[in-house]
């Protein structure tokens, strides 16, 4: 897998005495499914804002496809285009009067031609199945629909890495299922997907790799089974094991079930 983004020794402070990120180093690749977990205030959102270049870190270096990103507008734009960030609250992200113009905001900022913008907007709308809402005002949409608009916002910029900050927190079960289906579609397109979440069951079911943040530092970077087997780590970071992981351990299932249908298969 190609390395898209590398952070080296990143530190960031909101206030002098409180470090939101502390000497954090990590590499992110295309086509991988990464979950970022940690308790509240662990630095997940700040980590994402630094990855996208919205927050300028105090120390450290950031590399995009091996090339260091400096302070120039061009480099920042390239970083923000390549690493798309979907915010936790769609209402923080959505600014336009219609879904179509909202989705066009990013591509228009990239100074593309109108035809190119139109094509990217149309593709993003088709990908997120938003055709019926194209001319609707975003504030009249439901939470799940707004979330799809906020994802289409970023998709329209053709990113290589997609960062989701707690994407399913306010979604109902139906919309959560739809969101996971969308993730599968995006994954198949070869996008690297990084999701910050508190939903350990989702992490266990979905992720290939888990980053555990604790007090602004990287406490672990491992496969889900390794992270959830490390009880000291979980205890230190205030995390819990996923339900299916616990069930698999209790009944000594091998391999450990990731979904309920895995349990059915193992029992057969």
């Amino acid at each position, binding site marked *: 897998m190609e390395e898209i983004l590398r952070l080296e020794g990143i530190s960031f402070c909101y206030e002098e005495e409180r470090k939101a990120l502390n000497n954090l180093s990590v590499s992110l690749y295309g086509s991988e499914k990464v979950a970022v977990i940690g308790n509240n205030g662990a630095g997940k959102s700040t980590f994402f*804002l630094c990855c*996208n*270049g*919205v927050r300028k870190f105090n120390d450290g270096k950031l590399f995009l496809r091996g090339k260091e990103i400096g302070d120039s*507008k061009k480099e*920042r*734009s390239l970083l*923000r*285009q390549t690493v*798309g*960030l979907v*915010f936790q*609250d769609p*209402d*923080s*992200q*959505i*600014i*336009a*009067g*219609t879904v*179509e*113009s*909202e989705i*066009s*905001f*990013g*591509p*228009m*900022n*990239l100074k593309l031609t*109108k035809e190119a*913008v*139109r094509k990217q*907007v149309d593709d993003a709308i088709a990908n997120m199945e938003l055709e019926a809402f194209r*001319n*609707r*005002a975003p*504030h*009249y949409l439901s939470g799940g629909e707004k979330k799809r608009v906020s994802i289409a*916002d*970023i998709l329209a*910029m053709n990113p290589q890495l997609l960062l989701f900050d707690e994407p399913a927190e306010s979604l109902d079960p139906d919309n959560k299922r739809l969101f996971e289906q969308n993730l599968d579609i995006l994954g198949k397109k070869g996008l690297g997907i990084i999701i910050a979440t508190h939903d350990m069951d989702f992490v266990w079911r979905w992720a290939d790799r888990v980053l555990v943040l604790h007090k602004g530092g990287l406490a672990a970077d491992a496969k889900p089974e390794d992270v959830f087997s490390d009880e000291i780590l979980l205890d230190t970071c205030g995390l819990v094991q996923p339900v299916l992981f616990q069930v698999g351990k209790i009944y000594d299932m091998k391999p450990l079930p990731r979904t309920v249908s895995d349990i059915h298969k193992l029992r057969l």
Partner: protein
Amino acid sequence: MIITAVLTVIVLWCLFYGSIPGQVLIFFCLIMGGTIAVFGRHKKEGFLIIDILARKSRLYHVNASLKFWTTIILMILCISSNSAVIGIFLAIVMLFLTVIVGGLKIHDYMSMLVLPVSFLLLSGLALLIEYGGSPAGVLNLPFFHGYLSVMRTDQIRTALVMSKAFGAISCLYMLSLSTPMSDIIEVLKRAHVPDVIVELMYLIYRYTFLLIEMYYSMKSAAKSRLGDIDYRTSLRTTGSIYSNLLARSYRQANNMFDAMESRCFEGEIRFLESRKNMTLIQVITAAGIMLITLGLRLC
């Protein structure tokens, strides 16, 4: 609603007293008051659905620039005229366009119109009635050792002011009930209104809905904890809600700026514009209405 209906009856009675026969006047006043009472039931938070109604209207598909500039010209003609006929003519034309052509329900139209009409009626009442020591008007009511009088000149002046205002309001309602705010902002942008104003309009429009949503959720939360149990508590609750709104809107603005920056925002808000084509029949209709209005204005 009932108050507006009663106000309608009183103002119309004062306005036309002495000009038309008594029985006809009673009938006319009751019809108008009844219409307001039946159709004009104001929906709570109804203004929030203006955009939805606009998108449902058949006039939504008409070019926004054409609608906008026609409305502006008609409003200027209406306000600058010295005849009540233009206001009445425009009110009827706009009612026809919005309800018959646009397909908006008469109840929705009336319920939207009733709020500005209430203010208009109150202003009309203030213009109509004078207090004096002797019964000098066409209508005189004894009041505290004097008389509340309605003069003939006041009737004419009030009819002119109210018809102008009503005509202009009707034009604006035709525009806003057939053109979503985002389209109107795009027209202003094309008209070279300064970017800073257009961008502020985009953000204010978006934030109006967000803040109202926040306000109602905070209000419900306060109500659920008896925050409106008595007048004093209610006042204190409202104060707290407003201060919280300020703090939250500040935080929301910061988050929104982050989200805009994350999508390569560099100081200029730009969206893809989608223009609707003008058809010949639309241009002819708009020109026709403007010419008739101009003709009435010159008569």
